[in-house]
């Protein structure tokens, strides 16, 4: 049987239109090239 409480926890609030600006700012834009460059910078 389903555990209602557990299942309910899986539901997260949907992104509201008013919060888009913040979501854009917080969007993770780092890609592997950035990571690679970071690694190279540290090694040198």
């Amino acid at each position, binding site marked *: 049987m*389903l555990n209602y409480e557990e299942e309910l926890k899986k539901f997260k609030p949907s992104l509201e239109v008013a919060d888009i600006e913040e979501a854009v700012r917080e969007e993770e834009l780092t890609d*592997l090239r950035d990571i690679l460059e970071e690694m190279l910078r540290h090694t040198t």
Partner: protein
Amino acid sequence: MELTTKFLYQSNYWYNDGLQRATVRDMTGAVASLRRSLKYNRDNIMARNLLGLVYYGYGEVGSALTQWIISKNLKPAENAANYYIKMIQESPNELDNCRQAIHKYNQCLTYCRQNGEDLAVIQLKKVIAAHPAFLRAYQLLALLYLQDEQYTNARQVLRKAHRLDNTNPITLGYMFEMNQVRKKSPVKLKEPKPQTVSYNVGNETIIQPANADSKEKARIFTLLNLVIGIVIGVAVIWFLVIPAISQSKAFETNEDIITYTDEITAQGAEISALKQELENYRSASDQTEDAQDTAKSTQSSYELLLDVQEQYNSNSVSNADMADSLKQINGDSLGEKGQAAYNSLTEAIYPTVLKKNYTNGKSSYEAADYQTAITYFTGITEMQADYEDGTALLYLANSYALSGDTDKAGEVYAQILQLVPGTDAATKAQQGIDGNTPEIGNTEE
């Protein structure tokens, strides 16, 4: 090959994978692939735009807009994200519906966590009606139905959720749970019906096939259904078909009547026009005849006038005959010169003739020869109606009266009253009208 180039290839590979998954509505898989594509290359605009489109496809408008805005910032020109954003901005009502639906869904989550499931169910139904592509709302509503053991409703909602994203783990999990519940529910087996019916009659037990009765019932039901069918058929014909046919016929009859009425009206108008035309022709014909008569009269008047003039000049014909000719001339039909000649001749000829006829008429009257007197006095009055102040007319009237023609006498008496009123002749004419034939001895010259 450089590592960065490999990253680009990997990014494109996962973009293609995401596109393939999105095409078959594997939204969860598409999101995972596109996210991976962006991890290799955040500038893969197509992958980012498609990610936004996939979010939009299952109702996550906020997430979709987030991806498109980022895409637009990364590549402001020649970017499909511009089109998507513009389309959403151009339909503000739809955007507002989505915004409110998302807000209500978030409220429902709060209700659920505060044991307000009933309220949440009501609210979620409204959310789905306003924003039919909102996958999360369907899933939460399905969870609430499952919790309340409303499996039929849950199944319907889950089907819709499955159509929006056919690999979503939550949806699949709930569907699996539904199937488990169905398997666990006991299935009632129908008890086999007894094949025979047995009953006792006295000491004997009679065993009869059970379906004998049911066959009989089936026959009765078949017959009954047949009768009901016939009755319904007759009723349909009686109440629907026949009125429709009658109405159609009545309509056709009315159309015919209208057509005939129009034709009759048109023919009536045509007849009236033809009558009018005929009248015009007749009138024109009468006028032509009148004109011809006038022309003839004028012609004969001139001819007579010329004859009389010639006779007068040659002194070959008596005055009485010339006077008779002049009386036949229509003075009104003559022209100015003809009229002058006519007047000249009458002034020269009439007085002599009048005087002679007057004397002869009086002699005949006094000799009681009233018919001869009538001839003389008629001739006189034709030449000059008021001759001798109406005395000639008085003689004429008396002659008629004494000869027994009282009607004619009355007409002439009346003529005297009209022609010479206030004269002695008029006074005597009045006596004549009153029935006393007047004496005319005093009027003699």
